[in-house]
């Protein structure tokens, strides 16, 4: 009787062996953490400056600003690194002429694909988890709910997987790494930049003019999603809202004192008759990214095949079931993630 044995995916073993070899991975990790630490320091100095110039800065606000700033920088770094780390995975095998040698072994293309993806993502996850001690500085100042922290980490992880899948898809599609990387970044820019651009001019073309863009426009923009995660809905009191109950936003302090972030408020913050409403668009982002990841991996699983690329296989059944499952979940939770903003009122009260 043949002995049964569990074996790790050879691609993961190889990638893990080589990925942490040499100076580069440690330099990236160090650079990543230094950048985060400098961001934290910069935000703290900004808060100090605001206090020096007469502003009232609560300790909780410092904590919130730090948390928000660090999350955004971390997300930006992930967005930049994830496609770079995965867009070479398959194309480099083709360029190095090792692809044929791998395909001549019993290793299945699917194993190659998920081994590569998992190995690249594990390095990115390492970056995320290595940055948690930097985030712990927030605890010194307080003001951040643990739920916000969990949501932020979840969003970071999901974004990592999706943007990694974009790189993987491009790497499977193109034979040259340079082309795969360029197209991957182009997709990233489209995903982030286009909604922001459309949102910026929406009011000028809407009827009547001056309407805010719909949240739907920003569903797949991770920056908007993070803005929604790190913005806590203000307390609503009868007949209006109470600025004192707003832990995260104030109208002259709407982004926790951080520059540029107000650009991301469109599609997320709406001024309704009952006060300020924060649309949790990250819910739709999570669902959209899950669907996108499955679709990209599905296409990559076909593109990586050496021949008969688009012939149906058993794995297609698995992908199809997963996709149908996600669509069903999205349908059943429609009311949870599809939120319509309140009708427009002209500017905030008070």
């Amino acid at each position, binding site marked *: 009787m043949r002995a049964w044995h569990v074996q*790790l995916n050879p691609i993961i073993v190889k990638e893990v062996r080589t990925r942490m070899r040499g100076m580069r991975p440690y330099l990236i990790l160090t650079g990543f953490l230094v950048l985060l630490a400098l961001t934290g320091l910069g935000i703290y100095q900004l808060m100090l400056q605001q206090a020096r110039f007469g502003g009232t800065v609560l300790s909780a606000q410092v904590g919130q600003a730090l948390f928000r700033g660090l999350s955004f920088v971390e997300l930006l770094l992930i967005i930049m690194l994830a496609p770079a780390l995965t867009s070479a995975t398959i194309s480099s095998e083709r360029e190095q*002429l090792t692809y*044929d040698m791998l395909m001549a072994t019993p290793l299945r293309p699917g194993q190659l694909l998920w081994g590569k993806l998992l190995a690249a993502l594990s390095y990115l996850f390492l970056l995320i988890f290595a940055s948690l001690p930097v985030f712990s500085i927030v605890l010194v100042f307080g003001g951040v709910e643990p739920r916000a922290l969990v949501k932020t980490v979840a969003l970071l992880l999901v974004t990592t997987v999706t943007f990694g899948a974009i790189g993987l898809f491009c790497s499977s599609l193109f034979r040259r790494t340079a082309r795969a990387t360029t197209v991957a970044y182009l997709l990233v820019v489209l995903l982030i930049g286009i909604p922001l651009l459309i949102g910026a001019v929406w009011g000028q073309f809407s009827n009547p003019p001056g309407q805010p863009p719909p949240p739907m426009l920003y569903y797949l923009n991770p920056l908007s999603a993070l803005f929604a995660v790190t913005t806590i809905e203000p307390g609503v009191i009868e007949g209006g809202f109470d600025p004192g109950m707003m832990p995260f936003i104030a109208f002259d302090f709407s982004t926790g004192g951080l520059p540029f972030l107000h650009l991301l408020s469109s599609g997320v913050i709406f001024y309704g008759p009952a006060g300020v409403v924060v649309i949790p668009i990250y819910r739709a982002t999570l669902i959209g990214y899950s669907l996108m990841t499955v679709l990209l991996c599905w296409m990559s699983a076909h593109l990586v095949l050496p*021949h008969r690329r688009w012939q149906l296989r058993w794995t297609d059944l698995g992908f199809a079931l997963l996709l149908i499952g996600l669509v069903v979940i999205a349908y059943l939770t429609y009311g949870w993630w599809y939120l319509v903003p309140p009708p427009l009122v002209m500017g905030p009260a008070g």
Partner: protein
Amino acid sequence: MNPAIETINLSRRYGRMIALDQLNLRVERGSIYGFIGPNGAGKTTTLRLLAGLLEPSSGEIRLSGQRLVPGSGQRLVGYMPDFFGVYDDLRVWEYLDFFARCYGIPSDRRSRTVDELLSLVDLSSKRTAYVQTLSRGMQQRLCLAHALVHNPPVLLLDEPASGLDPRARVELRELLRTLREMDKTVVLSSHILSELAEICTEIGIIESGKMVISGPVDEVRRQLQGGAQLRIRVLHSVEQAEIVLRGLVGTASETLPHVRNVRLAPTEERTLIIELDEADETLQTRLLHYLIGQGLAISEFRAQAENLEELFLRLTAGE
């Protein structure tokens, strides 16, 4: 007994271009089969088809009598591509360990397999070196070792000697001999005949996707030559010898061989090359008697073996 490899009317098209046209190949077990042809003749396509990396447009492949279906032949063949890649950032043992894992070799056997292969290809001393630090010849041997990691009965080597220096070529030849002793069937391709002539037991010449001739080396040589060439050296008066021999050209004699042509050897003095219609040794002996009888002082008389290179050029020149 089934041959190690058999192809039946194997064809492969790339769009409109026919890369391989109705190839019928038969490679016996334990033989070293040399696949020869100019660049673009279809050698690599054939080897990739045999390795299961390409699907035939028509026809079929049988390995040890079993029909090859996509994804079924990986354990039966070891494949080394013409332009092979190596993972530069891996150590030599890790490289083989990685491929051993790809073939699902269990951990208790993996380490032993790696050591045995390194010893076979004489790279034991480089076990912990990075692959990128190896010379081209060493990388070639390492790549060959990777193809052997699952101990396949058939090895497919695409242009294994290309880019190697003379010493590395000799080492490769020795390695191929060892593999033959291990009862492996080896199919290797080359566009340089001299690489294959010494080591192969069988050769096949392919051109424009069609097999021109195939069989044991001597048989192919005999078939291609069609007759024989004699090399005669005289002590003096090569002119007289030439006159005597030219007198035999075109004459129909029962006792002497039919001389097709006589020419002076281009590089050697007092030497003539005589082309005969047949390779009958009795008739050649009679010719020697006849020449001595004509008063020629012959210091050397032997059959001139036309090398494969010339045969190949002759065979493919008219295409």
